């Protein structure tokens, strides 16, 4: 597995101290409060493939995106990209060199481009930072614009002169400018209209083919993920509960949360005639998660072990699942 893996994440934890100020705690006799955003997450992404992380709010998917890219440091765990470690504290020069390989595409096309910069400058920044010579920059910028389906004349415009979909194209052009190997996509189409979404997703797939890119694709939209990913991880309250390829995951979901999630997606195909499993409750508070398996309060198959022991992600048949019910053979 690790031989050709572009991205390896091992035992990733991310906890935030959200305690109230010291004085308040003394008066109210409170303890410290910790928010566990990411708990013991491990996965690997082979080269030129797309790994998708799905989850709802509070699942930790955006935090993982930021951890992988290096925007926040993990509390514990190890991340390496193209063989070199990202989490190692030493060697800042080496880290800067590595940054070239990793880029990110953000959710909000209106906020991810500096409104006061022209497109030319936005695209020139990564070229400048990663040391592309000036004269080559002149040809590279129109080339990038053409690659993402825009006109080279667009280089002189400001972001507000473009629509949401076009801005996302510019963001993609910026991400591929310095020829990265790996791109983290944080809900890249969630803020776009459906028809524009189709254009952008198709563009991302084309670029992946052409440039040999590896993607970490974060989304809450299961249908989009099915379309893009070669492997999918389902997150619940910071932990991976199921990891499987798309066909296996969607045709035969095994973890109760995955089943519930798939059931909740409105389906265009069967109009008004769907039999729905009753859905219970809402996701718990990540500051005070339930004991044992975080999903147990909402799970129709829970037993005593689920209430006390955290299930580990284990390889079972064609996928990985973290569920006592499944590992015990009950489900």
């Amino acid at each position, binding site marked *: 597995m690790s031989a050709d893996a572009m991205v390896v994440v091992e035992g990733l934890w991310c906890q935030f101290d959200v305690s109230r100020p010291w004085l308040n705690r003394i008066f109210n006799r409170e303890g410290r409060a910790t928010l566990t955003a990411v708990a013991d997450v491990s996965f690997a992404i082979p080269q030129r493939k797309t790994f998708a992380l799905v989850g709802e709010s509070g699942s930790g998917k955006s935090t993982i995106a930021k951890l992988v890219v*290096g925007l926040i440091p993990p509390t514990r765990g190890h991340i390496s990209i193209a063989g070199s470690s990202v989490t190692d504290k030493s060697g800042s020069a080496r880290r800067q060199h590595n940054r070239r390989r990793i*880029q*990110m595409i953000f959710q909000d096309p209106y906020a*991810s481009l500096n409104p006061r910069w022209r497109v030319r400058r936005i695209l020139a920044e990564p070229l400048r930072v990663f040391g592309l010579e000036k004269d080559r920059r002149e040809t590279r910028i129109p080339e990038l614009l053409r690659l993402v389906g825009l006109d080279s004349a667009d280089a002189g415009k400001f972001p507000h002169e473009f629509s949401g979909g076009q801005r996302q194209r510019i963001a993609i052009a910026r991400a591929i400018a310095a020829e990265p190997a790996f791109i983290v996509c944080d809900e890249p189409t969630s803020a776009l209209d459906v028809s524009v979404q189709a254009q952008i997703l198709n563009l991302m797939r084309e670029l992946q083919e052409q440039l040999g890119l590896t993607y970490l694709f974060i989304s809450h939209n299961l249908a989009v993920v099915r379309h893009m990913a070669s492997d999918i991880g389902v997150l619940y309250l910071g932990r991976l509960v199921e990891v499987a390829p798309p066909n296996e995951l969607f045709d035969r979901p095994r973890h109760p949360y995955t089943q519930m999630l798939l059931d909740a997606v409105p389906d265009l195909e069967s109009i008004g005639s769907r039999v729905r499993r009753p859905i219970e409750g809402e996701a718990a508070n990540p500051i005070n998660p339930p004991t044992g398996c975080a999903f147990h309060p909402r799970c129709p198959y829970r037993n005593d072990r689920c209430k006390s022991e955290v299930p580990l992600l284990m390889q079972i048949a064609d996928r990985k699942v973290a569920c006592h019910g499944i590992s015990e053979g009950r489900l």
Partner: protein
Amino acid sequence: MSEPIPGSWQRFRARLERVWDSDLTYSFRTSPIAIIAGCMTAILLVLALMAPWVAPQDAFDVAAVRLEDGFLRPLERGSTGILHLAGTDSQGRDVLSAILYGARVSLLVGFASVAFSMAMGVALGLAAGFLGGRVDAVIMRIADVQLSFPAILIALLVFGIARGFIHPSQHEQVAVYVLIISIGLSHWASYARTVRSSTLVERNKEYVQAARVMGRDNTAIMFEHVMPNVVGPVLVIATINLALAVIEEATLSFLGVGVPPTQPSLGTLIRVGQQFLFSGEWWILLFPSIALIILSLSINLLGDWLRDALNPRLK
């Protein structure tokens, strides 16, 4: 791809057209107050700048002044042959020329102090908002303390301290610089506060995160990315502060702690003229006062218009 590349003149014209058509220019064109205030400010600025060429007399040149021309009424002709449109003062100095030269000093001090406080305030506000933590706490506490004092008091304080350090023979030469710095120091906090709040908002936006992902350091992000996005309101504050600075300089000079008497500003003229108001030589006080009022009023109105014009676009 087959379009002829426009020449530099066409590009310039296109740019002018874009500016003419822009929301800001349109708002200016359609607001009578803005146009009047703008014109007044422009006229005063030009006259003050061109004082050596426009003024009938070099008001700072002691040799050009004749004592026997003293206390001439407005529209009287003096012995030097000059028609004194605003009369002369006790020394025989042409009041109109004195106003022009005085306005020059006032505006010089005004612009310079605004530039100083803007640079300091923006830089500190950016640092406080972006870096947060202790840097933020220290800068903002100093700003809080300072904002609780009236600006004049601060200027007086700085001025007094500076006087203690500088040798009396140097006083006159550096007076203007000390004045600029003291007025500048009394205003930086308002810029810092505004810039800090805007920076706090911009800091969390994705384009800043994108720059971080690229590995850019804090200074680069602060000045290249964030600053252009937070300086909008700064322009408005600067305009209003300019009027304030001019008044402050006048007040300080009026109190006798401003510019040296050899380079009188409008404030000095007002102080001097005050003595003669009730002895009948009203013109020595009236004209410099009118000039000061017009100057600060126009700048203020311009600032008001600018604030309103920039606001709806921000919505």
